[in-house]
């Protein structure tokens, strides 16, 4: 079961692909997401979104925004 990750800010699509694992800096602490995670909505605080595709890991800096997950698809909207 793949996990779809889409990260968009007001200027462009930063990332849109399938990942194996994703970590987001939620308001209540860092949240790790694997496929099959329960649906959630969460605000983000300053930090880094990390995602893994097989063995390679990447990061995207975040200032403000929110994330929504449903049906194994994460959509992250960033301000600015």
């Amino acid at each position, binding site marked *: 079961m793949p996990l779809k990750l*889409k990260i*968009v*800010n*007001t*200027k*462009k*699509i930063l990332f849109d692909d399938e990942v194996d694992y994703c970590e987001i800096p*939620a*308001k*209540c602490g860092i949240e790790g997401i694997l496929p099959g995670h*329960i*649906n*959630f*909505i*969460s*605000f983000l605080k300053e930090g880094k979104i990390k995602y893994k595709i097989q063995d390679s890991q990447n990061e995207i800096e975040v200032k403000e925004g*929110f994330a*929504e997950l*449903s*049906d194994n698809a994460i*959509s992250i*909207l960033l301000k600015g």
Partner: protein
Amino acid sequence: MPNLKSIKRKIASVKNTRQITKAMKMVAGAKLKKAQLAMNEFKPYASTYEKIIQNIANNTILHNNPLFEVREHVKNIGYLIISSDRGLCGSFNINIFKEALDSIKSKKLDNQNIKLYIAGKKGTDFLKRYNYNIKHNASATVKNAENDFIGELSDIVSKDFINGEIDELYFISNRYVSTLTQKTDSIKILPIEKNKEPINSGGYIIEPDSNEEEVLTKIFNDFIYTEINIRLLESNAGEQASRMNAMDNATRNAGKMINKLTLTYNKARQTAVTLEILDLVNGANALK
């Protein structure tokens, strides 16, 4: 016989007009490129947001948010109408007004129960003539640095909806399809459309969970902000495109007019010359 001098004056004036319309076309073309860029940059954000809201709307659990409330007796309807600040852009504004008036009439409500929120000076000027309740008017020019008036507008409409001042909210604006076509679009924004049959009622965990309502309210308010913003950007691009086309047509028409007038002028001149020669010849003959 038309006066030679007056025709000449007319040609000069049409030439002037052509120069102006040509310049306006160039300016609109430059602005269009900028507006298109801004619109395209923002589009993915807006469409992702729309999708998220759709996902949320599929979850019955969240339907107790005030923005989802469907009211049985619709007494007051709000319209957010996006027109332009400047004229001379073909049928751009006329289409908006037509759609707005048609839509308002089809609701069969008292004029005072129609509440208008207008962006764009032209819209305010036109709709002032009718007896509707204009709650708010703003400019329609999106400045890059400060989008403050959009925030104001979205705050007002969502507050009015929650307070019961309006029971439904529609957006009427021109959506950008291509440089040659803009589609007038009327869409119901509030209450947010929800699915009757929950496709996915697994629910959501909302964080921070201590103030769930606040999180959702902020997300929905931001959604309205985003919707207004993308429509303004599209309308802006559409306005420039429409103006460019209108000015292009005007330039071409002016060219045609100049050709016609030049022909008339030449004919008149020819006639005058012929008459003069005739006079001379007659005079010479008489002397023989």
